[in-house]
């Protein structure tokens, strides 16, 4: 069986390896190589010796670390509530927390600005606008869902009897949490934290819009050199520094996430959280996530003469700024997000199997290789695609499908990272018992592995869809035909000309995107409840 298995793993490894090699590694190596122009590492020394760039590097690393810590700390109680909620409530909560994930930065910044003003955080001694605090707050807002969803779904599958036993033995609540629950959550927390870190590490719009013009990060520096100054050498040098930093960080989280033996035979869900815990959490989430969402929703209904559906109706009529009605852009977004989701699920599932069951060296390479695109500048990948995939047989740079493919580069790590901790938790004893009782390896896989893996898969699938709706990644650097305009790009065009009609329509479009993601999460999750309790 050993040889068959390693053959199977090798076969499973081919697709993700080829995918990442073609659409990520080859373009990135090409653009960096061209940028450095045979000057070797001299340009690296040059940018390293620029105090501005060096400051940007340290700031990037620090703000991403603090953002990650805050997000995990604030989202963990939320994850507990999600883990203990009834399936129906859980589904709604998951949809709700995922909405911020796709909100356009400019609108979130506007909503925050309005909140800052209303709560007096805009002037005087307390000032949030254009500070590091605004960046951190926004990162928590955008990434909250990643921790709640990844950790929450893992938590729901833990055997709660351990906690009950500890409590019976007289351990105080906080000790039960820190000594029994937290250590068992570590793989899922590490997995989510890695994604949050890389998202904060490469965040662009938040830094510029909320952080203001004074804050520079590795990502904004790459953009400044490559796009504002057309200095491809300096841009490539900073891109190399970014790649090295990300490699080190991913290697570190891989180490933290290493396989841990677990003893749960079957999930034994915890009882629902106390009313007080739920209320406290609800209030916290309501303020953090609900207020900015509420402001955008309110603006989408606000018209010149009160409130109404005018802006939503207008989505069906083309304005001069758009090549087609906004509804066409919504349709494109649905098509692209579905394609990106399917690619991410197929490639990500195969990759997750390799990460869990492959040989040690293969596991590490896969874990690194599939996560690095998350921490790589959109400029590097986008410009790389433009000059690497530009000639037959690889002339893909203006093909429409390169857009969902680029989205799936960001979606794949979500699928891998949500599935791996879940797959690793599958109890070997359970599989052995099944095998002893005469189940074929195929049946073991089908009846034990798949239902359990499915838990992680739905979370990753929903994020892969959301990533594409929010247009994460390199696609802003890939030229597009007007007929393939997507909702977020239509929204930016609407906001580029003054006028309340256009602004209102942009708000309505944002609310449609948010609704789209909420519906997608609910539909994807609904495949889960039927499985629950069956293992």
């Amino acid at each position, binding site marked *: 069986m050993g040889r068959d298995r390693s053959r199977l793993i090798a076969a499973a490894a081919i697709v993700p390896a080829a995918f990442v090699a073609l659409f990520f590694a080859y373009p990135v190596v090409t653009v960096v190589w061209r940028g450095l122009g045979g000057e070797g590492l001299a340009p690296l020394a040059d940018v390293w010796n620029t105090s501005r760039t060096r400051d940007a590097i340290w700031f990037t690393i620090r703000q991403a670390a603090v953002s990650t810590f805050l997000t995990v700390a604030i989202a963990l109680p939320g994850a507990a509530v999600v883990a203990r909620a009834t399936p129906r409530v859980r589904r709604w909560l998951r949809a709700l927390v995922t909405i911020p994930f796709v909100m356009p930065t400019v609108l979130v910044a506007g909503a925050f600005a309005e909140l800052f003003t209303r709560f007096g955080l805009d002037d005087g001694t307390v000032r949030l606008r254009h500070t590091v605090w605004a960046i951190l707050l926004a990162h928590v807002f955008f990434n909250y869902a990643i921790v709640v969803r990844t950790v929450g779904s893992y938590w729901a599958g833990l055997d709660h009897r351990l906690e009950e036993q500890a409590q019976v033995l007289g351990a105080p609540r906080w000790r039960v949490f820190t000594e029994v629950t937290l250590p068992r959550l570590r793989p899922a927390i590490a997995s989510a934290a890695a994604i949050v870190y890389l998202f904060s590490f490469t965040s662009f719009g938040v830094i510029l819009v909320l952080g203001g013009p004074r804050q520079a990060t590795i990502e904004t520096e790459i953009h400044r050199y490559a796009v504002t100054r057309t200095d491809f050498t300096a841009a490539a040098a900073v891109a190399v520094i970014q790649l090295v930093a990300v490699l080190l960080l991913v290697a570190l989280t891989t180490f933290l996430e290493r396989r841990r033996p677990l003893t749960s035979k079957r999930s034994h869900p915890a009882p629902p959280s106390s009313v007080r815990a739920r209320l406290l959490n609800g209030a916290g989430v309501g303020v953090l996530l609900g207020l900015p969402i509420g402001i955008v929703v309110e603006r989408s209904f606000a018209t010149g003469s009160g409130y109404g559906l005018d802006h939503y109706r207008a989505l069906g009529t083309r304005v001069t700024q758009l090549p087609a*009605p906004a509804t066409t852009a919504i349709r494109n977004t649905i098509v692209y997000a579905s394609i990106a989701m399917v690619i991410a699920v197929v490639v990500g599932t195969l990759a997750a199997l390799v990460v869990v069951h492959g040989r040690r060296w293969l596991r590490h390479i896969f874990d690194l290789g599939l996560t690095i695109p998350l921490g790589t500048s959109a400029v590097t990948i986008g410009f790389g695609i433009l000059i690497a995939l530009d000639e037959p047989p690889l002339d893909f740079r203006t093909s429409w499908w390169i857009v969902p493919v680029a989205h799936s580069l960001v979606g794949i790590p979500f699928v891998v990272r949500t599935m791996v901790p879940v797959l690793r938790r599958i109890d070997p004893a359970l599989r052995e018992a099944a095998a002893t009782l005469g189940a074929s390896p195929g049946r073991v896989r089908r009846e034990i592995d798949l239902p359990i893996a499915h838990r992680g898969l739905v979370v990753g699938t929903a994020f892969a869809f959301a990533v594409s709706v929010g247009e994460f990644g390199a696609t*802003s650097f890939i030229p597009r035909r007007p007929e393939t305009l997507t909702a977020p790009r239509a929204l930016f065009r609407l906001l580029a000309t003054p006028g309340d009609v256009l602004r209102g329509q942009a708000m309505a479009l944002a609310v449609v995107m948010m609704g789209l993601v909420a519906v997608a999460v609910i539909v994807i999750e609904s495949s889960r409840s039927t499985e629950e309790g069956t293992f």
Partner: protein
Amino acid sequence: MKHATHLIALVLSLGLVAAACSDDTESSDESTTTTTADDLEPSPEPVNITLLTHDSFAMKQSILDDFASDTGITVVVLNAGDTGQMVSEAILTAGNPLGDVMYGVDNTFLQRALDGEIFEAYESPSLDVVPDHFELDAEHRVTPIVFGDVCVNYWIDALPEGVPAPETIEDLTDPRFAGDLVVQSPETSSPGLAFLLATIAGTDDWEQFWTDLRANDVSVTAGWEDAYYGEFKAGGGDRSLVVSYASSPPAEVIFADPPVDTPPTGVLLDSCFRQIEFAGVLAGTDHPEAAAAVIDFLLTPAFQDDVPLSMFVFPVSDDATLPQEFVDHALLSDDPHILDPAEIEANRDAWTDRWVEIVLG
């Protein structure tokens, strides 16, 4: 395998939603290129010309359809982000260009594009309808198509009590406008750079001017959207002066809600920097003649008349007619500030670095 079924169901249901959202715009994508029957001249071979342009490019599809049926040339538009991104991408892909024609490079980026040797020279016969001062390249590697002014706008009703609107660029440093102006960083924004250039061309000592502006509590944002909608009165902010465009007031009328007769904003004409947008044939095109025909097309009345309401810029052609909204509400400076593209390119990094020191340092 219930989950797999669910996934398929999701994809299918999303597909249905997508189909429901779709509408008749499909037909316009597949515009026919057949020439009309009464066309006596031998019709040229149908050819596709890719027009690489910025994200602000917009025009009526019917104009492109007419051009296709007249000439057999189908124009395929390719949007490449903002102007800076488009120029960087064109330089990066020089020799194997992303398109046949580039439209939209402006005088602030022109020299960089010329230095990148991305264009093939073409002198359009249609240039005779264009005033000479718009032509900035003697070798005709680029052809002027549209222009516009970047100017300080003010929200008329939000000006400080009893204070008249600013009249000169120096007024902006006057304490009566303390805390009223929001500008964009020239490092990240095209209007931000244009306004910096306006101050370099239009004040005696631009470094002192910005030092005074800073003392007058100027606010800086990364982009136009967060300035106009975030801090300027238009989006509910508390600042009454913003760097925007000369064409912003007509847009405020056309897209007003509820409808208005006069714009809520005015333009400080002394602060305007002139941006001219050019088109050029990209070197490496397989269809240089058809590409040249597209350049000519961009100067025809059909296209030139459409640009004000489609892109909120002004046509360069003397033969073009402005829409009534522009005649009524758009003010253009008689004497806008302008700088030589070569001078801009040579000093741009040094100027923006110095600006960062003065304003953000």
